[in-house]
């Protein structure tokens, strides 16, 4: 039995340097800050391992986006990626 620690739970990320996921270019590495979409879709995203605090690689960015999340490939529609706030952590050269 382990006690879980919730690293992102009470921290309020600074608004600086955050942007919409939809504005990120292919090759960027980002951390998810906030998922703002209908409850159903947020619930599905989180079950797929796409939740607040998750590191995500942007593989392809057109109107829908192709992302690497926890080793899996997720395709997300444009309406979703516009509502997801992320913090870029690195850009691939």
């Amino acid at each position: 039995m382990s006690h879980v620690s919730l690293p992102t739970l009470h921290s309020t990320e600074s608004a600086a340097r955050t942007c919409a996921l939809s504005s990120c270019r292919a090759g960027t590495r980002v951390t998810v800050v906030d998922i703002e979409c209908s409850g159903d879709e947020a619930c599905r995203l989180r079950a797929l391992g796409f939740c607040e605090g998750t590191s995500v690689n942007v593989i392809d960015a057109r109107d829908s986006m192709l992302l690497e999340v926890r080793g899996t490939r997720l395709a997300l529609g444009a309406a979703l990626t516009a509502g997801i706030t992320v913090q870029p952590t690195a850009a691939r050269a």
Partner: protein
Amino acid sequence: MTAPTAESAKGATAPLPPGGTLRVAIIGNPNTGKTTLFNALTGLRQRVGNFAGVTVERVEGAFKGPDGQRVAVLDLPGSYSLSAGSPDEQIALDVLLQRDSDRWRPDVVLVVIDASHLERNLFLAGQVIELGVPVVVALNQIDVANEQGISIDVPELSHELGVQVIPTVAKRGEGLDPLKSALVRAGTLPLPERRFRLPADVQRALAPVEQCLLREGLHPSAAGMEALRLLGVQRTEPHLAQVPDLRDEVVAAAEKLRGAGYTPARLESEIRYAWIADVVGRTVTRTSHESVSFSDRVDRVVLHRVWGPLIFLLLMAVVFQAVFTWAAPLMDGIEVLIGALGGAVAERIPEGDLRSLVEGGLFGGVGSVLVFLPQIAILFAFITLLEHSGYMARAAFLMDRVMRRVGLHGKSFIPMLSGYACAVPGVMATRTIEDPKDRLATIMVVPLMSCSARLPVYTLLIGAFVPATALLPGLTLQGATMLGMYLLGTVTALLVAAVFKRTLLKGPVRPMILELPPYRWPSLWSLLVSVWQRCALFLRRAGTVILALSIVLWAMATYPKASVDASLPEEVQAEQQLEYSLLGRVGKAIEPAVRPLGYDWKIGVSIAASFAAREVFVSTMGTIYGVGGENEAALSEKLRAEVDPNTGQRRYTPLVAIGLMVFYVYALMCISTVAVTVREAGGGGVGWRWAGIQFAYMLALAWVAAWLVYAGGRALGFGG
């Protein structure tokens, strides 16, 4: 209805009665090889797919345990979590919480985990472990994980999860015996429970919700799981409405948590993934880190903005051309075989009605349909290949943009592509679509995708009336006409879906959430099994529905007997008999409805007869023209030679043939599709209403389009 779990939880810990059946439910994320494992365990074969959620039917199988005990296995639909987002996941949740209508209560739950995607897969496993039912974890595709340099400490993982963990490679049948033993042993071990402790304030806030669920008879562990899970669920799940006070308690708990600085909707995923990170940290070692995987390299080309759609179109063109040309030698072979058989049998029967029944009814009717088996097999092989390799999800991704214009998202394209093979699995594949309106709109248009049952009609008419002129290397005018019919159906399906989404099924465009599974070499065996299953289904239809209809139609064409002048040529005699027969009279009654389309009563009868199944059109024509033990080529020949006795002109022109094909592109002539639409559109009155709308709009579309082709073509001078 919900008084579920207390009793079953007791049942789970109690030893099974000797000779009793152990019931195992299999659950796992899509693409974990869950269905392959199910097949390997039970030996019962079914379709295995690689795109999200191919397992849409309820499939049960059984095997004998190590000590001869009977073990029944239920393959649950692929699910990412227990928070049901799609009808598929709802089915899985209902079975696991013992709320499904059949009351199928699992004694053991087998969670299948993809070892190469452990992190994501442990989310569902974590939820299932808390259900208060014995659990066994199959760590599948362990070979793939090892190849990727991921090594997993299995005993440690088993310790962390508190359940037996068995490494397996389902597609090679590895690890099955230990897995079977583990399943049988699971009931004798202590029940698994939550593997982490919630922060005290969270536990306090959730306590009233748990109390509520406990009063309903849920296992204490399951109540804890549900309380945490319901915080993130916005939709009204059935038990939220049925359990007294539950909804209010969930709202109150969420309020309390917000006051304490938590975000209730994210709480479950944060806590579970924090626990998962912990488990993964202790059990997984990565020896190498592949930076760009094989799948990514393929995707760079296949999903390319320019090349992607081109490759997709090229693939489709190859498929349809292959269906038309590769099948030809096989079809000729079957024709010769049926012809020889029919001739040999008919020779032994004295001249008369019995001989006519065998020649015209059996060999003419059923035989003319059997000829198309190779084409159907090739088409299914291609569609299955697209599914198994992982390309299907890529096609959905490529089509998302087009589908969004329509008002649906890319995922709706997967059932539509399956519809090329058969509308029935296509309609069932819509279960992975979460939004009910999107789902209905997709169901309504899936039958517009030209299915394999239309192939015999297209092939007959194209073969008879379209010359095999070469257009491009490898593409003939015949192949192009076939492609044109498929395109017509596809484009119309998109347009009609757009109309539905703007009228009867108005709603916002839901954004796409789609997992692209890694590309895999499909196993030849499972490919063959899938194709064989479809062929068997077709053969069964030929042996039952089509056989029965052929006999009925033969009888209708033969009786009552006309008193014909024996001095007339045989052809004329036959013609007079046909017109005098019951079938002829029915045809004459139908004729006014099809006359504007350029059809005579013979086509009218064949269309009417094929409302049960489209292939019957060909067998009816076969019966009418008495091609008996001969073959499809003979039928084409007769169609081309048919002359209108009044005008002396050819009765079937290429224009009539094209119009007829267009009619078949649009008309919903398939009892099975109507039945599956009734069920999937909601069943009962609602289901029938939607099935009625579907049938009516497609028939109207068919008639109008065929009329436009015929009347328009004539006006433009293509009448000849």
